[in-house]
């Protein structure tokens, strides 16, 4: 699943349309940042799943869609809600277990066992339907926060 050939015609066309936009986004080049072994890394999750806590505003359409939400490191997975505007993906997995989208409990286990060094004080969420050009300044602001948090590894999760 989730190879384009496995999807229905209309979903496939939508995803192909998104691909057509890629060359214009100035994504040429291959940035590459090296770092220490995993056991010494400080890890944050950045998700494009449109997640937030109940106290945060839901994701709007339009320009505000590029806003990010802060997810405190001590969040409980079951506090998270999803207000992503797309109806084109399954939500039943998230309804049963937020870790299937935002694997915070798995990362806590890996940190406790020393597989990763530590976890960030803050994680971040955006709504992935936002178009790529708008995400560049968002990424820059987020990167500033991540640096202050001494994060040197980001796990990106889609939805």
């Amino acid at each position, binding site marked *: *699943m*989730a*190879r*384009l050939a496995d*999807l*229905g015609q*209309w979903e496939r066309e939508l995803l192909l349309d998104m*691909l057509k936009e*890629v060359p214009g*986004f100035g*994504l040429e080049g*291959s*940035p*590459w940042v090296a770092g220490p072994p*995993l056991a010494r*890394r400080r*890890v944050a999750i950045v998700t*494009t799943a449109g997640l937030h806590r109940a106290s945060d505003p*839901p994701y*709007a*359409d*339009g320009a505000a869609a590029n806003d990010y939400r802060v997810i405190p490191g001590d969040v409980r997975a*079951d506090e998270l*809600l*999803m*207000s992503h*505007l797309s*109806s*084109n*993906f*399954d*939500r*039943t*997995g*998230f*309804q049963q*277990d937020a*870790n*299937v*989208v935002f*694997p915070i409990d*798995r990362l806590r*286990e*890996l940190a406790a066992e020393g*597989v*990763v060094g530590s976890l960030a004080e803050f994680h971040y969420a955006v709504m*992935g339907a936002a178009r*790529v050009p708008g*995400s560049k300044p968002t*990424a820059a602001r987020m*990167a500033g926060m*991540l640096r202050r948090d001494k994060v*040197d*590894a*980001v*796990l*990106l*999760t*889609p*939805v």
Partner: protein
Amino acid sequence: MGALGKWLEAEGIATTQISLVREHSEAIMPPRALWVPFIMGRPLGVPGDAAFQRRVVTAALKLLEAPLGPVLEDYPEDAPAVAAEESEGFACPVSFSRPVTGEGLAAAVAKEVAELAPWYALSRERHGRTTATLSGLAPAAAAKFITDFIADQSTPGYRDGVDPALALRLATQDLKAYYLEAVAAQPGARAALDANRWFWHETAAGRAYLALREACLKSGDETVRRFGARSLIPLAVAPRPSGIT
């Protein structure tokens, strides 16, 4: 999302990512990506299976130790399928009282909401939470707002500071979550796609959402028309109406 990985990496933060659409990752080539063979909406594969999720997370994190990139690796393990014999009976999992002839859609939806209530309560109890809380409306009120809007597009919103399109989105997402959380609490394992198929093709609510789209397309508010055209109905259920951008 591949683009976000590239932007963050360009800002000096190493990234690794889970990829659900391999063709997108092939085109964007983010620094490190693990393509997983799971359905959209489940990047870690299996809800409630910590061991499975852990294997996926670990495989994605291990890419951070790759000496050279970009790296696009395929995750080798499929999510276990729900046994066919268990999902076969899912065509109509709730024995809804069929709407009598002439009974309106609003009444049919209200009746379904009432009939699902004990299963929804069980789901909340079992999981200690519900995701159907975006709008702040109780399920019956969300259903009423939706069916009222179908009848009259000037139906006032339910919350200050929330524009009409967002009010509709939050109410419809909540009501769908209510149905799907409730039905997941019923006996028998079922595949995610079966649950979604049930909602869209077997329930009065599914029919109401299709009617809501038509109502949205008649709205004088461009954001409401766009919501109806683009965000309400999955492409797996119906194509987007032409002429709406």
